[in-house]
């Protein structure tokens, strides 16, 4: 029984890792040599492949993706934290309405308003910029939902009351007292926006028409279709595109997984 258990775990783990392994191995091959055998051991063409990739617009596209992910992270986490703090720690007329509002909006799939959003972005003059893929995160229902729960659970109301009696202003209370307490939640949420905006494919595909504003997923999916299909170079590009999320994930994998699973286990 124990052997079966270990074989199962080892097998699933190997299957999880295999495509990554193939990706990294392939990026060290000269494209035409990949198909002569199984690319299971490293070859010596990595630097050339990297050169090929960097000769394209890769660096600018990479910068675009980083800009989008950081801007989306700051914007999404800020608005989520503000409304989360309001709903979790204040008693006001619209409290329960806002709570339901957040939950209901979380259920509406993004594609329903996609065409309207694209037209709106064109009218606002953002058609060929990175704005459409950033602004969509400015009202991130999941983030708001997460923050309501998180602030409710981690910030004791008494501390806020004390500060209020001492005459601290409300923004001071939020940024000086509540913020330090919810840092882990903010970290989790930032990681999530980073990951999801980094990997997002559909939205940049349909909103960005200008090759100058491409993000990584769109760029790589169109890379090298015109010229010779350079699989090795493409795999190298993919490996580099996967790297940032991999690093961020490995740095905080425990809190990250906790954050992602929190909603499910509670509900």
């Amino acid at each position, binding site marked *: 029984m124990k052997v079966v258990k270990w074989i199962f775990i080892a097998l699933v783990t190997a299957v999880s890792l295999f495509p990554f392994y193939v990706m990294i191995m392939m990026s060290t091959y000269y494209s035409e040599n990949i198909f002569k055998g199984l690319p299971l051991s490293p070859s010596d063409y990595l630097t050339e492949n990297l050169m090929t990739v960097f000769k394209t617009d890769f660096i600018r596209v990479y910068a675009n993706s980083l800009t989008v992910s950081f801007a989306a992270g700051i914007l999404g986490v800020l*608005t989520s934290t503000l409304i989360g703090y309001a709903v979790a720690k204040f008693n006001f007329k619209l409290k329960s309405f806002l709570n339901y509002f957040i939950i209901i909006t979380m259920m509406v799939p993004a594609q329903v308003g996609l065409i309207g959003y694209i037209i709106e972005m064109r009218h606002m003059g953002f058609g060929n910029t990175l704005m459409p893929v950033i602004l969509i995160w400015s009202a991130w229902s999941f983030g708001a939902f997460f923050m309501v729960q998180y602030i409710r659970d981690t910030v004791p109301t008494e501390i806020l009351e004390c500060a209020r009696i001492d005459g601290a202003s409300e923004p001071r209370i939020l940024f000086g007292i509540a913020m330090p307490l919810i840092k882990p939640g903010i970290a989790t949420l930032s990681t999530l926006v980073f990951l999801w905006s980094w990997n997002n494919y559909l939205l940049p595909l349909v909103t960005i028409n200008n090759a100058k504003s491409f993000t990584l997923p769109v760029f790589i999916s169109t890379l090298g279709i015109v010229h010779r299909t350079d699989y090795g170079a493409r795999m190298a590009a993919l490996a580099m595109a996967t790297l940032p999320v991999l690093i961020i994930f490995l740095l905080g994998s425990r809190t990250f997984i906790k954050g992602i699973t929190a909603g499910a286990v509670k509900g």
Partner: protein
Amino acid sequence: MNTETVSKSSASSRVAPSRWSGVRVWPYLFALPFILSYMTFHLYPTLYSFWLSMHDWNGIGAKTYIGLRNYVTLLTKDPLFFKSLYNTFIIMLMSVPLMILLGMVLAYLIFHLAKGRVFFQTVNFLPYITTPVAIGFIFSFMFDWQTGIVNALLIKTGLMTEGYYWLQDPLMAQGIIALMIIWRNLGYFMAIYLAGMTAIPQDIYEAAKVDGSTGLHTFTRITLPMLKNITVFLIVTSIIGGLQLFDEPKLLYGGWSASTSGGPDNAALTVIWKFVNDSFVTGTRFGYGSALAYTLFVIIVLFSLLSYRISAGKGDKA
């Protein structure tokens, strides 16, 4: 907006001590950025899309009001819509039960490991954070007819004498997409189940042990029922997400060569892929596309309610 909240606060400050007056204004101010952004970038486009869905519009010229005709065309004269819906459901049927089963088994095994729990959890979670583009490329490479690793392995081990054209077989195409989904999400399912298992109080197990319950009996009588809510959550969210499937099939077929659209015999065409095709690729039928999106929205609402009813109503067997 601003003056309104301020006056509201001064009215209520008669009741509360004056230094509390800030408490009345600030929650509205804090909620405001989110609400305004939602109105501007989500609610307005959604309503605008609904308005568009009643019009015939190619994105440039004049919009002609045609009432519900887009919806009628979609539901009566567009067999490809039903085909795409059917494909989406087949792919979900192939992937969701397996993800639930494998995710639960994997979580159960890893949960009971003496050591290496964090390691296996982290490693198996990696596919979930990978760019879908990478997944699409890697899978289309692995299953390629001439150059794919899968064929090469099968031939080398003697299981097959010549390569199989995996990606040109309609059923296989759907199977491979299901496989991509399973591969990507298994770690996520496992992590959710692991979190759920950690949340089960340990004294229940001890009580069961005292009563003589062991192994499989404990699993089916305690662990499974305690994980019911999580299973319901996973099924409902996979159906909501599954109906919006786009990245995997599109990148499996649109990645290497842009020539094929929809896979062999359109077997890989999902609803959102058709939506993208109709609205942006083969034409710019924005009205029709909006109608398609709204129809899908209604289907998503119906099926998430239905699946919630069914999976939550199964009682303790689930």
